[in-house]
């Protein structure tokens, strides 16, 4: 095992402190509001949006975890050695982002602890949600095992590779099942479609790559202080692959939008509202701007932040947008339901980001995330 030379770690320390502060603030406010008012602290409702911002957080971070596993697999499963310098970092980050997503979801569920026994004892085999939970739980175990292996220097043994491959497969199945949880809903045309799992995995790869690039940039003071292998990767293969993925995804988002606007199917009128919102165009500007930055291999950290921001808006539009056309509710319900997340819901977003970045910074400080195999 070789450990690369890191910078002074100023950025890591700053992220660690910011993550800690975010964790304390978000947990404090969220718990106070939830303990005093229950889920009425959310702006969700039976007559409107049942799955609010906490579910958006979950989808965003769970899919980011899938994407990070995909990025890690380029070296560890598919044998492209140039990607080894970021592999361990990605494995660790795939675990902490999944924990971040689970944390937001757990605070959204009515009975999170009941889930621990009720799902295993009464598993509904035809429920996508059930399989998604199983696959993400299995990945969590496999991901921890894989991380322990590489942390102890076992990168290439047959067992280590098999665990890595199994982790990759379970992550792809989990992300796909999360897509199916939405895509199977024929009664909600905004979500419905047999390609939604593919869309989720594609966009997962983008957010995974964004987090991988961002934390790699943050791990070193500047490109000059990066070890040669990391610098080579960050100047060539990584931004190129990232730009390619992002370009395809931008096209897919564009086609989804046009199809949504073109179709007259009841329920798809929500696309008019989505496109009329400035947030849609902010998303477009962020993703297209990041695409050109990546093509020019400039300002990679900024490009990554833009992609993370753009896809958070995309997840929001997807999860919330699918619920805005009211079901059979009568004339007193507006044509499209108005929903604005509450302070408590935003605190769960802050909580999830804080867990992800605090977890990464702790890993960077304590777990030698820059390690890579010697050969």
């Amino acid at each position, binding site marked *: 095992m070789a450990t690369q030379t890191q910078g002074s770690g100023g950025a890591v320390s700053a992220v660690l402190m910011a993550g800690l502060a975010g964790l304390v603030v978000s947990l404090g406010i969220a718990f106070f509001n939830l303990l005093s008012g*229950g*889920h*009425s602290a*959310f*702006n*969700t*409702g*039976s*007559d409107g949006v*049942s*799955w609010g911002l906490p579910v958006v957080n979950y989808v965003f971070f769970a899919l980011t975890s899938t994407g990070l596993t995909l990025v890690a697999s380029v070296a560890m499963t598919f044998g492209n050695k140039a990607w080894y310098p970021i592999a361990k970092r990605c494995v660790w980050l795939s675990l902490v982002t999944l924990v971040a997503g689970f944390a937001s979801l757990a605070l959204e*569920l*009515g*009975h*999170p602890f*009941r*889930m621990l026994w*009720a*799902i295993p004892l*009464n*598993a*509904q085999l*035809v*429920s*996508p*949600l*059930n399989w998604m*939970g199983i696959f993400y739980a299995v990945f969590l175990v496999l991901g921890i095992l894989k991380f322990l292996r590489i942390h102890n220097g076992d990168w290439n043994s047959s067992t280590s590779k098999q665990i890595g491959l199994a982790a990759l497969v379970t992550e792809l199945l989990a992300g796909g099942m999360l897509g199916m*949880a939405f895509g199977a*809903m*024929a*009664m*909600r045309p905004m979500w419905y479609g047999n390609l939604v799992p593919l869309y989720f995995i594609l966009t997962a790869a983008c957010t995974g790559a964004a987090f991988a690039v961002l934390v790699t940039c943050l791990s070193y003071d500047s490109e000059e202080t990066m070890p040669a292998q990391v610098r080579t990767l960050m100047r060539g293969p990584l931004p190129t692959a990232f730009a390619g993925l992002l370009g395809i995804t931008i096209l897919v988002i564009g086609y989804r939008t046009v199809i949504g606007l073109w179709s007259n199917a*009841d*329920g798809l*009128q*929500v696309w*008019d*509202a989505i496109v009329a919102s400035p947030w849609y165009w902010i998303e477009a500007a962020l993703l297209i701007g990041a695409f050109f930055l990546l093509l020019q291999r400039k300002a990679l950290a900024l490009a990554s932040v833009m992609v993370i921001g753009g896809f958070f808006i995309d997840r929001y539009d997807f999860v919330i947008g699918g*619920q805005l*056309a*009211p*079901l*059979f*509710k*009568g*004339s*007193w*319900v507006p*044509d*499209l339901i108005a929903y604005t997340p509450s302070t408590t819901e935003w605190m769960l977003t802050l909580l999830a980001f804080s867990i992800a970045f605090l977890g990464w910074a702790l890993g960077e400080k304590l777990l030698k995330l820059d390690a890579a195999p010697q050969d």
Partner: protein
Amino acid sequence: MAKWGMVIDLEKCTGCQACSTACQMENNRLPGENYQDVLYYTEGRQPTPTLKWFPRPCMHCEEPSCMHVCPTKATYKTEDGVVLIDWDKCIGCKYCMIACPYGVRFYTDEKPLIEPNIKQVFKGDGDLSWNPPYKGPQQDPKHGVGIQPNGVVSKCNFCYHKISKAPKGTPDLDESNPELVEYVPACVRTCAPKARYFGDLDNPNSQVSRLISDKQGTRLLDHTGNKPQVYYVSGGGAASGAVPGTRSNKKA
């Protein structure tokens, strides 16, 4: 074993909401969380708009998507065709509320529809969401009957505490029959114009089966494949009600 179902005659329904009120009392519902609702639609434009209404309980589907998505099997279908929720298994993930095409499921831990918050005025004991001044005698969480606990989803249960006690082999639960009246769902029993019928859909001689056959009963959103066990019949005239084809009455 019966397959319980309901027929609603839209030609007879006056939109009086007695069904909703009876259901609220019978099932300890909070304002805005009616298992049984009457939806109102304004159709047409000035100067000749018309007011339409549409009574809508849970459809107790033959292929309930809410049941299929429930990760803990908390939502289940009984042998006599009723879709129920086991509140002791529900984790409050709300996937069933997402998957129900009819919008007939309720999560009670939400901002109140009206002030003062009834749940604060009549605070619930233990896990129960509230403590209504009038309570039905039944609290059966395994069948989703009684006062809704916090953190779970609820829905119309066809007054399972009543219909499950009906004599076996009964083709129709007719409120005009003194021997059966106590087994009749509250919304059916209270319907003044007798627009609601409740009986065994598998019995070709039941009144509900004959009505569906004779008056060409239709089901709401049949294209979803959920196959509701609630049927609507109508005379088809301009003045009579019709099953809405879309979820909202107008496009954005």
